Structure formats: structure tokens, C-alpha cells
């Protein structure tokens, strides 16, 4: 959002941002271990639940019990594992980027 500020204030802001390495203090707070565990748990559980639920509904409407329930249960489990892998990838990327900024900060100090 463009905002008009006096020049000396802006340069002060720029210097402050440079000094504290702009994005590190906010927005990228590392989640706690419990938060991570909870996230993985719900991702895995919800996918199995959704898969099985979808299969159950399809069976009800198509009168094919239990074909879809069984098939979609396993697909749901696969989707759950996919979800967890994606979540882990995200967290890894986050950790790597925060580590990278920490390293560059150190380099700038030296």
C-alpha cells in the first residue's frame, strides 16, 4: 500500500529494516512441536474420514455396498499420506528459508 512519508523517516525505516533483516521477526514464527504434531494428525485422519465417508455415500446412492467404501477408504488413506508429505515439505521449506536468512544475516555482520 503506497503511503506518503517524509524522506528522512523513510530512510530511517529502510535502515531499520536492513538492520533487523526485514522478514525474520514476523510472519514466519516457527510453529511449536505440538502444533506440528496436531497438524499432521488431523491431515491424516481427516483424509481417511473423507475417503471412507465419500465411499459410504456413493454406495448408498448406487446400491453397490461395500465396493466404493473399501476402494475409497484406501484412496483416502493414500490422500492422507500425501497431505502429510506436503505439510512436511512446507515445514521443511519454511525451516530452510528461515535458516538461509539467519545465515545471510550472520554474513552481513562479519
Amino acid at each position: 500500500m503506497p503511503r506518503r512519508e517524509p524522506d528522512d523517516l523513510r530512510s530511517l525505516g529502510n535502515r531499520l529494516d536492513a538492520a533487523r533483516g526485514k522478514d525474520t521477526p514476523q510472519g514466519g514464527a516457527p510453529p511449536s512441536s505440538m502444533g506440528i504434531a496436531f497438524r499432521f494428525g488431523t491431515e491424516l485422519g481427516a483424509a481417511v474420514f473423507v475417503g471412507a465417508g465419500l465411499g459410504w455415500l456413493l454406495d448408498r446412492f448406487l446400491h453397490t455396498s461395500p465396493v466404493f467404501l473399501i476402494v475409497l477408504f484406501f484412496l483416502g488413506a493414500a490422500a492422507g499420506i500425501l497431505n502429510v508429505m506436503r505439510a512436511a515439505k512446507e515445514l521443511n521449506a519454511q525451516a530452510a528459508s528461515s535458516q538461509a536468512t539467519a545465515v545471510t544475516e550472520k554474513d552481513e555482520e562479519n
Partner: protein
Amino acid sequence: MAMNPMEQFEVKPLVPLHIGGYDLSFTNQSLWMCIVVGAASIFLLYAGASRRLVPTRAQSMAELGYEFVANMIHSTAGDAGLKFFPFVFTIFMFVLLSNFFGLLPGSFTVTSQIAVTFALAAVVILTVILVGFLRHGIGFLKLFAPKAPWYLLVLLVPIEVISFLTRPISLSVRLFANMLAGHTMLKVFAGFVIALGATAITPKPYWSVLSIAPMFLIVAITTLELLVAFLQAYVFAILTCIYLSEALYLHDQH
């Protein structure tokens, strides 16, 4: 003994209202939602009114919130994501303040109801779908088709669809379950204090000394709950951003 730790989650009608067979009563749930929305509006309007160069305390709190959410969107969804700042900010503030207000003694935790969290998650997912189709047209469906030979796609497309359908569920269940578990735990330990304290009038009054132990635990858990309240609001908002960025860029990592 009437100590039900789940009683705090009961939705009670304050102003009964039935229209056309539907129960539209104004409940304690509605009341606390109004309080949360009202408090957020009043705070932000008040904080934004002064617009000083050297911010007042309230203004700098609001600016901190603004920058926090703006950075979060920028780091996950890039420049195009900033268009959705009002949406994400509203959701973040609503969840955050609901969680915090729920920690006040005697209050009602809006986010401990699956109906509320699921409605929020449904709004998020519907927005994501709408944005995806508006931006990419029918090409949005490519989200469900990773690069793979056709015989694998038969298997992969259903998996991707289920994975996508999981999002509103995991998003809502996580917030709801965290709030429910935390508040139940607080009430259960509070029950221990009373149960142990009540032994003072039994033949073995020395047991009542022990009631101090769960009291300290409550203090510790309340601190933890403050952290959880913020963390869950943060997780809800950042996942909203991530889902939006997928709809905007059709995740390029594939």
C-alpha cells in the same frame, strides 16, 4: 456432584425465535459472536482513528496486526495474494479474538463449536475454488492432475480430489478440537480443586491441602492456552494463505 466439564459448550437460546420450522433463536453463541465482532471493530476503528506518525499504544497494536498478516500473506501467496488481505485479516482477527475471549472466565468460546469453525473453513474453501476458476477457468482442474502417465492418473486424480476435500475438514476440526480439548482440560482440573477442597468437611480433612496442586496446574494450562489460542488463529490464517496461493499459481512445484 454437578460438575460437568462439557457444560460450558452448551448452546442456550437467549431469545427464542422460530421462523417457518427453523430454530433461529438468538443464543449465547450468537451473543459472543456479536461481542467478538463488535470488540474487533471498535478496537480497529479506535486505533485507526488517530493516524499519528508516532503511533499511540492502540495504533501500534493495530499496525502490528496489520504487518503480521501482510507479511504472512506476502511470504506465502506473493504480491497477487495481497488482494485478499481484507479476507485473511478478517478471518485471523475473528478467530484470534474468539479464542482470546473464550479464555475469559464465564465466557463462551465461539470457536469451540464445529458449526462455526466448519462454516469458516467452508467460506475459505469456496473462496479458493471461486478464485481458482475465475483466474484459470476450467484449467483450475489441472490442480487435480499431476504430471503422470494416464494409467497412474486413474489412481492419482481421486487421491488428489479426496486430498482437496480434506482441507475444510482438517482446517475446522483442528481449530475446534484444540479449543474443545483445552477448555475441557481447564474445567476438569478446576473440578479437582473443588473435589479435593471439599474433603475439608470429611473425616480426613488433611487431604484438602492437596487442592493447591491442581490450582497451580490451571495457572500453567491457562498460559499454554493463551499460546494455543494465538497459534491456532495463526495456523488457520496461514493455511488460508497457502490454499489461496495454490488457487492463484496452481502450485508450480509440480
